[in-house]
């Protein structure tokens, strides 16, 4: 964690830490907007590859995460553009028969804001979700792993203990530390106490 803070403060890219540090954050960001986990996974992969290819353009003013989110946003827009242009081409072809002055420019206008397309309850909680994920990403590795298995994946205490070869009291100590840290990390505004 200390290492990452140092890395963040000088804003240098460290692609070999990207998956552990940002994949879940980017994934949650994308899932809400494309409403499909498989598509979201593909978009994350494309984002990382695009990030590597344009690493020389990273000026270091932004943090790695902000920079990757900016790339992901473009990937999401491209994704909707692809979907819309397939649909759009069919529509234009139909319209072309009716009136001859329709042109390709309309395609661009039809590309809607991905946010408004995926608008739903989940999006309202997006800010909360990303705030939590961001705090989880800062937990020490073992706390993050156990808390995620227990709380996000909803695995049983028994299964987690078996998989990680720990005993239940270890598990509850780790869960306690994680929950306590999250309470401190999450902005007080989210709580009513």
């Amino acid at each position, binding site marked *: 964690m200390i290492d990452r803070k140092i890395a963040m403060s000088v804003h240098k890219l460290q692609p070999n830490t990207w998956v552990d540090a940002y994949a879940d954050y980017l994934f949650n960001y994308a899932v809400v907007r494309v409403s499909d986990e498989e598509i979201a996974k593909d978009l994350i992969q494309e984002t990382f*590859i695009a990030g590597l290819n344009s690493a020389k353009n990273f000026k270091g003013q932004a943090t790695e995460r902000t920079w990757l989110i900016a790339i992901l946003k473009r990937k999401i827009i491209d994704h909707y553009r692809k979907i819309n242009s397939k649909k759009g081409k069919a529509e234009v072809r139909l319209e072309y028969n009716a009136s001859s002055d329709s042109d390709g420019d309309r395609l661009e206008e039809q590309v809607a804001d991905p946010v408004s397309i995926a608008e739903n309850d989940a999006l309202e909680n997006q800010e909360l979700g990303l705030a939590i994920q961001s705090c989880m990403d800062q937990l020490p590795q073992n706390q993050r792993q156990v808390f995620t298995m227990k709380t*996000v994946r909803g695995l049983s205490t028994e299964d987690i203990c078996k998989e990680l070869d720990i005993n239940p009291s270890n598990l*509850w100590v780790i869960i306690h530390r994680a929950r306590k840290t999250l309470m401190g990390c999450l902005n007080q505004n989210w709580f009513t106490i």
Partner: protein
Amino acid sequence: MISCDEAAVISNKSQYKEASLSEKFKLKLHILFCGTCAVFSKKNKQLTSLMAKAKLCVMSDLDKKVLKQTIEEQL
């Protein structure tokens, strides 16, 4: 009367519906006399509802492994 540490464990177990009735009773009793644990317990419950509201998803370990390999190959 249970200790604050024991109270915290029960409060945490309750968030995953893993506290027994008698444990929950002991926690309630403890909270009557301990403000610190009362606050922790209340915040703990709120953290649980926030987590539920956020509907987080995670990539599987396998997906992450594939991603890591993809990055390494490009480096």
